[in-house]
């Protein structure tokens, strides 16, 4: 039922958006990243998304899981050119393979706040991810469009010059806590080939 509601809403907003079910079990994301799901997710397919896969449990814009797999040097971490319509300059946030964890987090901060939302880093620490020595960060995001306070977490690692990362964010009240254990399990299960 939840998927139907999401599909109906999104189709109303944009004719070319679709939602597909991602079944539990081992799921490849791109060429080198695999995650193990303990339950199904919903994947949003739309022309203005990417390069991350966008998944959701509660439906957009309530919560979103972004899965980045094999982002290359100089590749943007977002697709659409936000800001052009309002007269502001479109911003491009691109990954560089020499970036260190602090810089990657700042890159995500820039990407998440390009609509004027407000990001606050809560914690950044080393953490295993994808089978290697990665990093983990926690943040809060105040969404500009509706003032909703979101809680977020992210994991990342750079392997052979490519970025692999998973970010999850959901409203601080109820939704984040409801999904955080499942997201943590998903992140812990992530494996990057030939790391």
């Amino acid at each position: 039922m939840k998927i139907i509601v999401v599909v109906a809403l999104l189709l109303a907003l944009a004719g070319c958006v679709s939602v597909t079910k991602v079944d539990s079990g081992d799921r490849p994301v791109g060429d080198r990243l695999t995650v193990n799901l303990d339950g199904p997710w919903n994947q949003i397919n739309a022309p203005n998304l990417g390069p991350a896969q966008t998944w959701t449990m509660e439906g957009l814009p309530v919560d979103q899981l972004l899965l980045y797999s094999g982002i290359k040097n100089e590749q943007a971490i977002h697709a659409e050119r936000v800001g052009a319509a309002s007269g502001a300059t479109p911003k491009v946030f691109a990954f560089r393979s020499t970036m260190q964890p602090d810089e990657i987090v700042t890159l995500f901060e820039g990407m998440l706040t390009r609509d004027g939302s407000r990001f606050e880093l809560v914690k950044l620490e080393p953490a295993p991810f994808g089978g290697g020595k990665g990093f983990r960060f926690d943040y809060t995001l105040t969404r500009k469009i509706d003032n909703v306070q979101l809680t977020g977490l992210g994991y990342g690692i750079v392997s052979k010059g490519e970025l692999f990362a998973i970010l999850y964010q959901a409203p601080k009240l109820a939704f984040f806590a409801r999904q955080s254990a499942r997201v943590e399990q998903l992140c812990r299960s992530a494996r990057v080939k030939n790391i």
Partner: protein
Amino acid sequence: MPARLTRPELSTDEGGLWSLMDRQETQLRRSPFAVRDPQLNEYVQGITCRLAREHCADIRVYVVHTPLFNANMAPNGMMQVWTGLMLRVENEAQLAAVLGHEIGHYLARHSVERMRDVKSRAAFGQFMGLFGVAGAVGQLAVIASLFAYSRDQEREADAIGATLMQQAGYDTAEASKVWGNLLLEIQARPGYDEGRSSPMFATHPSPTERQETLKLLAELNPGGRTDEQTWQAKTAPFMLNWLKDETKRGQHEESVALLTRMIGHAPERAEFRFARGEVYRLRGSGSDADAALADYQSAVKAGNAPAETYRGLGIVYRQRSDAAAARENFQRYLEAAPQAPDSAMIKSYLEELGP
């Protein structure tokens, strides 16, 4: 100066617009983007009152946390000033120039004229419909673009603003400098196209035209004060956060131009050099690492460098495999900011770098 505006009847189109703005203001008052520091709000409201005089009681100013250059005013007396604008002005007179201009629109009731103009066209449904789809601050940005005043209205607001500045004792020559400074910034942008550069420019004549017009107006009434020291003292507690917002905006070329101007204006301010160093480091192209290092080092030399200056130095030295210098700077960062959110990450760098 016209008499104080009275609230229009709700049954009129103007009354409806005021009512709509009242609802937006209620949302803005509760918005997490509204800066709630009482001293800063009192200071900005005080400047507004000096300009608006008997209209002061009808105008409410909200400082809004958004790192872009913008200010706008609704017909019911609600004015927004974004923190990106606060970062960019160099003195009280320059802020007064922007506030005076917005008060000019209010006194001349330009938004009502604009609404009636839009209403006469098919776009009215879209005009009103847009109010339902965005949060308070987002909506107000939309509103700003909807009230795209005519050039004549802008010229009238400039003239009123210059008169209000002069009556309040401010140096009216500072008004043209606001636009000159902004022009330097947007010209630094790759693919620069005047007129498509910020929400402010989307609704205003070109900065070049504004700069020239305001210069001519200032020549009619020379003199006045800038109150730069007061401005610096009042904004000092917020400046570092505004600078950090700027460094993360992702508009590296604009930020470098802005911060280079700020350093030129106040070379003794370590936080300006730190901020430009951050922008160079985050851009990371060509010789940016060298430029970042030079800025961080000059920030340290200037004294009172922000703690993050040492983190920046540590990161650059670590990338250059200079373990000793990286270790020293990371240690200084942790000493200065032991509770920093990235302290665990920095400690892991220190372990990796060895004793």
